[in-house]
């Protein structure tokens, strides 16, 4: 993993999106993300995969399936980094601290069903952190622009 800098140089906001807390809304967010990263489909794919994994967790577990909440997504680009912010109003939960690391060397009979989402986010991003600010969880993801 590359080490992200404290300061992101020339950061500009590409997308500020309010997602209704329903799984069927994620495909529309994906289109919006593709729309703001037209020259980097690889980056858009990675961003969308990580967004879906985290948003699905938030909707199914954090919000217990409540369909009437809003999850805010902000995507920015700096000279060297893609930054993704996710904000919900669910109870405190840090997926990066709490999700167990899957054992990828198990045989097909022993592999458990599920438990891969957070692992994928950690593998695809250079940094992934969750914070609780009293009103909800803020997740910050960083990915280097080097392909």
């Amino acid at each position, binding site marked *: 993993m590359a080490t992200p800098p404290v300061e992101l140089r020339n950061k500009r906001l590409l997308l500020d999106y309010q997602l209704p807390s329903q799984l069927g809304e994620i495909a529309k967010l994906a289109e919006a993300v593709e729309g703001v990263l037209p020259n980097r489909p690889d980056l858009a794919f990675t961003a969308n995969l990580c967004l879906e*994994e985290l948003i699905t967790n938030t909707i199914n577990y954090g919000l217990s399936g409540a369909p009437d909440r809003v999850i805010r997504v902000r995507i920015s680009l700096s000279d060297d980094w893609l930054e993704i912010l996710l904000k919900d109003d669910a109870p405190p939960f840090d997926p990066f601290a709490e999700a167990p690391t*899957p054992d990828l060397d198990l045989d097909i*009979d022993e*592999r458990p069903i599920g438990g891969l*989402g957070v*692992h994928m986010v950690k593998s695809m991003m250079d940094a992934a952190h969750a914070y609780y600010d009293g009103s909800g969880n803020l997740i910050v993801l960083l990915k280097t622009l080097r392909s």
Partner: protein
Amino acid sequence: MTFQSVITMKEGVHHILLTGRVDSATAGEFEQTLKNLFDTEGSKVILNFAGLNYISSAGLRVVLMAAKRAKQNQGRLVLCGLLPHVREVFEISGFLKILEVIGDCEQALSLLKA
């Protein structure tokens, strides 16, 4: 783009053409598609990923369940035609080590009908 699947039977092999995206909203449909394929012993199934642009852990879960059932019922499941970014999702999850994944779908068919 949403998810679609078309099942055809070719020389004793079920061929399933997937298109679109498998995410947490469409994984249920994907699961229905694969549900009964390995009920009979010795079923041979090709999952053609050539038209699938996106898969998340919700879709991998369905593939793993199908692979487990295939093994239990002496069946065979082969995945083919994965786009590079989709293949990477399988790689990161350790699935390339436990699933049969072949680049070329014609080759997958000749392997299974043999």
